[in-house]
Structures are given as structure tokens and as C-alpha cells.
């Protein structure tokens, strides 16, 4: 009875993964197929949130919830920047905003097909069936952060600082000393 139950659970999980994956692909495709800017930003958000749900199905709880949360703010900020710079953000005029179509379709097809072929013909040795519980994952990730990956963590801090300084210095208008 136990064996049957596990097999049924596996089939259900596989089908959920397939459905979520198809959803992510559909929304990712919609991003470039619409001329309304807020629509394409929010389609990207939907695609990324579905990726987060796939992380949850794969039992990486912290990463999944974090992905779902981060992308909400990031993609909405993307939407406001689109609003600021586009000629026609509502897509009322149905402008075509693409170029070098053949080249890009060809490249993407070749790249995707190569990866899929590589994935399906490589030899994945042993597949893990059990993963640590989410609470243990949080604990171990924290330990990893403090012990082995500490330099990575601090480097991430400095790169965030660099990005802040670069974006501030680039984006803001020049400060006029006389106005102060």
C-alpha cells in the first residue's frame, strides 16, 4: 500500500510540475508578444512567480517564497520605468518594436534545442528522493552563510554598494552647487 501511495504522489507532483512549467513558458512568451508595457512587465512577474511555485514544489521553501516576494517589487518597478520612457506604454498604436527577427528566432531555437538534447542524453547518476525539512534548510543555509560562504556574502554586499553608487551617479541629474 505504501509503495502505491508514493508512486501516486510522484505522478501528481510530476503533473503539477509540468502544468506550472507550461504556465511559466506561456507567460514568458506573452512578455514579447504584447505591445502594452505594463502587460509585459506583469506577465514577466507571473512567469517568475510561477518559477517560485516550482521551487516550492521542489521543496526549496525559503528560495521559493523569496523569489515570489522579490519579483513582485522588482517587476513592478520595471513597469514604472517602462511607463516613464516608452513612447506608447499603453500599446494603443500596436507599434512593432522588434528587429533582426530571423537571427534571434534562429539563435534561440538552436540554443534551446542544444540544451534540451544535452539534458535528455546525459547520464544523471543517482536521483535524491529525500530532502531536508524546510526548518533544517533555513538553519543550514544560515550556517553556510556564516561559515563557508562568508566571503561570498560580503562580496555580494560590496557589489550591492557598487550598484547603488553607479546607479545613483548615472541616473540623477547633475547637482548644481549654486542652488544649495
Amino acid at each position: 500500500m505504501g509503495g502505491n501511495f508514493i508512486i501516486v504522489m510522484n505522478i501528481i507532483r510530476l503533473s503539477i510540475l509540468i502544468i506550472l512549467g507550461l504556465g511559466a513558458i506561456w507567460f514568458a512568451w506573452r512578455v514579447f508578444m504584447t505591445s502594452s508595457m505594463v502587460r509585459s512587465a506583469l506577465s514577466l512577474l507571473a512567469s517568475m512567480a510561477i518559477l517560485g511555485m516550482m521551487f516550492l514544489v521542489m521543496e526549496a521553501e525559503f528560495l521559493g517564497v523569496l523569489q515570489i516576494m522579490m519579483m513582485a517589487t522588482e517587476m513592478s518597478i520595471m513597469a514604472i520605468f517602462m511607463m516613464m520612457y516608452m513612447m506608447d506604454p499603453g500599446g494603443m498604436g500596436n507599434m512593432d518594436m522588434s528587429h533582426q527577427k530571423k537571427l534571434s528566432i534562429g539563435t534561440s531555437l538552436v540554443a534551446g534545442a542544444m540544451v534540451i538534447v544535452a539534458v535528455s542524453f546525459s547520464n544523471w547518476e543517482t536521483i535524491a528522493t529525500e530532502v531536508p525539512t524546510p526548518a533544517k534548510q533555513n538553519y543550514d543555509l544560515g550556517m553556510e552563510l556564516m561559515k563557508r560562504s562568508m566571503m561570498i556574502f560580503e562580496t555580494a554586499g560590496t557589489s550591492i554598494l557598487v550598484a547603488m553608487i553607479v546607479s545613483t551617479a548615472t541616473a540623477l541629474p547633475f547637482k548644481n552647487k549654486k542652488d544649495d
Partner: protein
Amino acid sequence: MMWMIIGIGCLVSIYAIVVLERRLVYKTWEFGYPVAAFASYFIQENVKPRKRDKTFYETAPILFITVAVLAIGIFPWAESSVIANMATGALFFNAALAYIMVALVMAGWAPNAVYPMIGGWRFMGQLIAYSMPIVMAITATVMRAESMNMMAVVESQTGLWNIVYQPVGFLLFYAASLALTFLPPFDLPNAPGELEGGVFAEFTGTRLLIFRLGRIILIFSLSLGITHFFLGGWAGPFLPGYVWVFLKTILVACSFFVVGNLLPRFRHDHTLEWSWKLATPLALFNILWVGILLLL
């Protein structure tokens, strides 16, 4: 049996919050007001604006109410009854509430009208303001509990509630939740009297009903959040745990309305300035404070 009591308790406290809002904001006792308001929105016609974005127009109210309900799901009601005992509960609460902003931006964009759009982008600015304080305040409570699980957060407060342990964090979380539920003094996204209702201006009938209901549930879940993160959750003498949870939640919701009536409205750029120049350094200070207290 237990779950029946909790479900009825939720409905009763949501009803009580609406009645008390009537009392505290408009100074009248109207015990039938929630039913009357529900019926009056329900029999309204659904007038839809002319050139709308159909998908967003339908999605926005549903997304709004869904995430407000989801945020309730992770909170414990008594020692052992919790709907979903997630190990990442505190972060999940945050993640669900980030989608309130997405729903409002959608609602602002969809009707192709000027007032809702300005309201939506304003709420986006408000998110940039309240997000950092709320996250850092939650982090400080997580530090004390050594776990992101809500049960652990509540259990860590036996003896000393977090409101005493980290008062700065409580103040920041309180102000941020006022901004998140866009109650006054942070009610710029739907600014009655300035933007004609802002993001809700073009929604009528059942969709507006869903928005109003979602807003009440949002206030309820935020009060529940304050109760669990800072006021000790189910802890309290004599009465059973869930009674304390509901009592504290209703009290916190009432204090929202009282505080909102006392303060003048903030302009959205002032909210941003105060948040980044004062609240974010204070939140960092709060984390340092908790860190030093924990090591002593």
C-alpha cells in the same frame, strides 16, 4: 469543533471591526451597517469603463482578496491549531502582502482613466517607503525566536512580549502596517476628496464589494500580524488562547482607526523621505539593539 469556533470567531471579529470603524470614524453605532453595505454594493450595476484592459480589470479584485486571505493562513490561533504551519511563515507573510501592491497597480492601470492610474503609482511609491521598515522589524522578531515559524515567534515571547523587548520595531511595524492598509494618514492611493476614490474610482458593484471586503480582511490580517509578532499571540490569563487572539486583534484594529483620525495626511513624497531618512536607520538600529540584548 475547534476549527468551527475559530472560523466563527474570524467572521465575528471582521463584523465587529466594520461596526467599530463606523463608531470611531463616523461617530454612530450602526450594528446592521455591514449587512446594509454588502447589500447595497451587491445590487449596484456593474458599470465598466470604455477602453479598459479586460484581464487586469477582472484580476485585480480577485488577487487583492486572495492574498489578504492567504496572509491569515500562517498564523496560529492557540497552542496547537494553525492552518499551515510553514517553516518560513514570517517571510511568507511578507511575500503575500507584496502582492497587495501588484493588485493595486493593476487596478490603477486597468480602467484607462487618470485618477486611478495616479493612485496606483502612488501606492507603488508607498510600497518603496514601507517595505524596508516592515521587513527589518520582522527580522528582529525572527532573531529572537531563532526560527521563521510563527509558532516559534509566539513561543519566544513567553514572559516578555516583543512590544517591550523592541519598542522601536513595534512602532515601525505599526506605522508600516497603516501604510500597507492605506488607512489614514497614508490613504493617498484612494484619497477620498482628492482623487475621487483613486484606485477604486472605476470599480462598481460586485468588484467594488470584493475590494471593500478585501480591505477589511487586509486590516484584520495586519492586526493579526501585530498581535502575533509583538503582542504575544495567544498568551493571556484565564481565557482560552483563541479568545485572546481575537480580543487583541480587534483592539489593534480599533487603534488603527483612532490613530488615523488623529494625524494629518502625509504627502507621498514626505512618506518616502521620512521612511528612508528616519525609519530605515531606526530599523537598522533596532536590529543592532536586539542583537546586543540577545548576546547579553
